[in-house]
C-alpha cells in the first residue's frame, strides 16, 4: 500500500540543494583557492531565480522518510493540542 503523503515533505527543492552546496561543504584554504568571492553573487542570483518556485530535483535525493529509511505508513493524524495536558500550567 502506498500511503498518500503531503507534497510538502516529499520533495527536495533547489533551495535545499543551494543551502548545502553554496553555504556548507568543505572550503579551500584562501591561498590556493580563487573562487570564494563568486559565491555570494551566485547565491543571490539563484535565490532570486527560485523565489516562488518549488523546483523539483530528480537526483534521487528527494524522498519522504518512508521511502528513504523504512516502509511503514504513518499513523493517522491526531490532535494533541486540543486539550491541555494535566501538567500544563494554565
Amino acid at each position, binding site marked *: 500500500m502506498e500511503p498518500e503523503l503531503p507534497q*510538502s515533505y516529499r520533495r527536495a527543492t533547489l533551495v535545499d540543494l543551494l543551502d548545502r552546496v553554496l553555504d556548507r561543504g*568543505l572550503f*579551500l584554504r584562501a591561498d590556493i*583557492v580563487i573562487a570564494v568571492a*563568486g*559565491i555570494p553573487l551566485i547565491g543571490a542570483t539563484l535565490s532570486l531565480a527560485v523565489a516562488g518556485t518549488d523546483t523539483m530535483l530528480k537526483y534521487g535525493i528527494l524522498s519522504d522518510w518512508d521511502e528513504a529509511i523504512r516502509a511503514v505508513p504513518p499513523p493517522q493524524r491526531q490532535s494533541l493540542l486540543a486539550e*491541555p495536558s494535566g501538567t500544563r500550567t494554565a
Partner: protein
Amino acid sequence: MIVERENPTTASADGLYVYCVARGDGPCLLGAIGLEGKTVYGVAAGGIRAVVHDCRPEPYQSQDPHVLKGWLASHQDVVSAATQAFGTVLPMAFDMIVRGDAQTGTLAAMKGWLEQNRERFTRLLDRLASKAEYGVQVLWDRAVIAAALVEGRAPLRALRDEAMSKPRGLAHLLQQKLAKATREALEMQAQAFAQDFYARIRGCVDDVRVEPLKKGDGPGQMLLNLSCLMPEGERELGDVLDAIQALEGVTVRFTGPWPPYSFVGA
C-alpha cells in the same frame, strides 16, 4: 563506473575545480560528468583523493539562472557519483577552484593541500563512514495551532466566549486582548515544540546541526531546521517524525539522503 588508468589530463592544468575528497590512491577516471560535460578524475596523495576537473583559473560565474542551476546540479551529480564509486566523501562547496602559483604548479598545490589535511580528512571520513545527511524541517500552520490553543486553554476560551457575547465596542477590545494572548501562547508553544522536537530528533541520530529558520513560500511557518547525520536506512528517526507530523497543524519536510555537506566544516 571508474576506470583505473592514467589521467586524461596534462599535469599543467591552470585550475582544478574540486567536487569532493574521498579515500583512494592512484589515478581514476569518472568520465565526462562534470560541469558542462568536463571530464572528472581523481588526484591522489597519501591515500586521499580529490575529485576534480581541469578548468581555467577563474570562478564559474553567470547571471543566467538556467546555467547556474545546471552547474549546481552537475556538482551534486558528481558528488553522488563519487559517493557511489568511493564510498563516503567529503563534499566541497560549489566553485572551489585550486590553482598553483609561479613556484608551485596547480597539480602540486592540489596534492599539497591533500597531504597537509590528510589527518583531518581521514578523521572526518572515519566519522562519516556509512552515514548520510538528512534535512528535517518542522513547520506549523499558525491559524490551526492558534485555534487549537484557544479551544484548549480555559482562559483563552473564556476570553473568546466573552467577546462573542458582548456588544460591538467591548467585543472589539476583548478580541484585541484575545489576539495578544493568543500570540503569546503561540510564541510559548513554538519554543516548547522546537525544544521538544529537537530533543526527540537529537536522541535518535548521530549528530545534528541547527540551521537558520527560513521563510517559506507556503502557508507554513518554520519552527525548526535541522541537518541530521545518521546511518543510511536507520529507521528510528521515521517513528519520531511520524509522531511529530501527527500533531494537528504541524508538517515535517524531510529530504535525503544527502552527502554530508553540513558535517564537514570546522
